[in-house]
């Protein structure tokens, strides 16, 4: 039976492109542990190209007008939230909105929201640079995973307090993961080559890993913890009305509602 368009879902081809570009991007984050030479600029370019490839792949796929409209409104909302926190000390009031919206509209749409909102908000805060492509992927993955959180547990819908707890737990994990990813992306370059915590090109994996972890704990935990706390607080405060409003939108947008065209009643009867 015919139905109205669904909320955006990645096509098989898009899933393939997403997986491929994600592997490129992930490699871009972790190669310093495995490779001796300097691939930094290669990956800056490769990741930016991957992001473009992904966006154009999704762009030529069919996104329904309603999903586009939702995406536009939510991206604009998140873009406006971002300057409120100025990014200082990890106080980024955007993650809760991304997580809650992705929870309602699903992983594919959540991924899109992550990349569009990170891009548009970067334009507003002036944060455009080599790091942007890394941030785009990180935000996209957070949206994707938030959308993929289980809707049911033991046959029952996860709603109310349980849902809040789930979202907070995910918010905390995402806040730390984002910090780690962003650190990975610049740790090899930021310290120079001769400190206790510096990256050793070609060094043993265990050595580099322990240096990275120490570096991360020493420098960026001060960012991750406030980010996690702020995200949790905002989820606690806004989840109930925000989820309710978005679910209502979902219902009102009439995704996947059956359409039936019949012969006129007169000719049938």
């Amino acid at each position, binding site marked *: 039976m015919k*139905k*109205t368009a669904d909320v955006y879902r990645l096509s098989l081809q898009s899933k393939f492109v997403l997986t491929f570009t994600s592997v490129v991007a992930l490699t871009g984050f972790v190669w310093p542990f495995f490779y001796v030479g300097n691939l930094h600029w290669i990956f800056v370019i490769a990741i930016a190209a991957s992001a473009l490839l992904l966006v154009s792949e999704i762009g030529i796929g069919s996104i329904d*007008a*309603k999903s586009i409209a939702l995406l536009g409104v939510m991206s604009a909302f998140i873009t406006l939230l971002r300057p409120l926190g100025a990014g200082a000390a990890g106080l980024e009031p955007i993650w809760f909105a991304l997580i809650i919206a992705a929870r309602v509209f699903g992983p594919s749409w959540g991924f899109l929201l992550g990349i569009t909102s990170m891009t548009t908000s970067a334009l507003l805060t002036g944060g455009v640079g080599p790091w942007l492509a890394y941030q785009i992927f990180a935000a996209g993955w957070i949206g994707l995973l938030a959308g993929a959180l289980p809707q049911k547990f033991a046959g029952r819908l996860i709603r109310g307090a349980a849902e809040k707890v789930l979202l907070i737990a995910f918010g905390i994990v995402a806040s730390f993961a984002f910090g780690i990813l962003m650190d990975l992306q610049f740790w090899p370059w930021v310290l120079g080559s001769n400190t206790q915590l510096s990256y050793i090109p070609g060094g043993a994996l265990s050595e580099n890993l322990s240096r990275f972890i120490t570096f991360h704990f020493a420098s960026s935990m001060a960012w991750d913890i406030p980010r996690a706390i702020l995200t949790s607080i905002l989820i606690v405060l806004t989840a109930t009305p925000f989820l*309710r409003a978005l679910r*209502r939108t979902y219902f009102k947008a*009439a995704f996947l*509602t*059956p*359409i*039936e*065209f*019949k*012969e*006129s*009643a*007169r*000719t*049938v009867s």
Partner: protein
Amino acid sequence: MITFNSVSLIYPHSLHTVFEDLSFTIDEGEMVLVIGATGSGKSSLLRLINGLVPHHTGGILAGDISVDGISTSLTKPGGLAHLIGIVGQNPAHGFVTDTVEEELVFGMEALNFAPDVMRKRVEEILDLLSLAHLRARSISTLSGGEQQRVAIGSALVMHPKVLVLDEPTSALDPIAAEEVLSILHRLVHDLGLTVVVSEHKLERVIGFADRIIAISADGKAEIDIPEEILKKSPIAPPIVHLARALNLDAVGTSVREVRRMTTHLRDFAPLVSDSQLATGKTVVWVDSLSHSYGEKVALRNISLEFKSGEITAVMGRNGAGKSTLFKSIVGFHKASGGQIKVLGTDPVELRGRQRLATIGYIPQEPSDLLIHSSVEKECAESDQDNGLTPGSTFAFLARLAPTINRQAHPRDLSEGQRLSLVLALILCSAPDVLIMDEPTRGLDYQAKSLLVDTLVSYSRNLGKCVLIATHDVELVAEVADRVVFLADGDVVADGSTLDVLLSSPAFAPQVAKVMSPAPWLTVKDALRGIAQATGKDSLS
């Protein structure tokens, strides 16, 4: 141009048939008006034309609809975009860009027009809709009528053959409405455009319509010329009610026609007016009030008194200072100059329950006051806030809107039900002053008469002071004792409704225009007046 062939429609999650076996044909170059009570399916009918229903909403559609030979069941709304222009109820919701020129170009950009074509069309539309002087203006700074013209313009740049408008003039003042309608009239006559328009305020559009589609509550619809439809339709403008009440042979659609038919009735009309102003105690006292927003002066040295048991209508153009006056009285801001006392207290200092019991304010968009997810929860909160026994707000609401669904989300209610809900929430704390900004926007005649009854009984029986800002002269004629007319921040007229409305031809209600110079504003006034003058009750 548009053909409906035995069309029936059922929405998903509903058993209610919106239309049943609807058939009609609209010819090229016709202007067709769609009328019906709120919720009867006017908007659904309009959206069926370009396929938004059911392609976007889902539902079961039987029968076929074709526009210019294209069937809407086979073509998605996007494929009809070049053929059908649609203008929504609130133009501000549809704008996507900042300036007038960009907004006009946007649709063409999306359809990939060549740049030189776009340039030419933009110029053409700017001239056609007299928007040339506004081309670089930011849309948010335009008046309601201008915004509506921009919305029509951005639909017209695609050179559609059909233009569909959902209540284009409901939110406009009479002059801006006239401006929009005369442009539609010109488009129909000069360009042969087919226009389908729905509207509640029939008195405004009736003169322009070639035919009317009247949808009744049971999903049946009739299409015919206005004179025929209006003979029996329960939804009719005041002049039609007047013609019926006076037992005239035919109903007229314009003031001129009805005036010609009633010459014999005006011969013996008394020319004295017997109006008098209320003599209650002063509730709101405004003394040399001034207010400005930055450079712009909104109110200039205004002194007014509003008394208990009196309904005052504040009229004037958009931007004349009506909303600023109300916000000052409510106490949203401290006025830049002058003083306001509501029952002896500066409204800025009112707090908590004392505020609830003193001032009730209903803003232009009543749903701004609704924050809960169901009617029931709104009512429960109001009970708690006002210290009433649980259920009393809902009981009050049930009297205003007996069919209201307790569980419904406030935003899913019809405009009339939503206004009833907000009225119930505000009135159950029995405020001494009730202030309403543009209460009749989007209301049909039925909801309006409910509003009139509620306001009149609140003010007469409970002796409360009621202030309304409105463009709706027919409402003013029905409900108000006194009219204050603002222009450019000054009070230019203040007096009894009769005196003020009769002194300005543009703002006179239809019945007054027909019966002028007799001092009658409503059908009721006219009947009573004629009965008195002829010394017998000849008309009942």
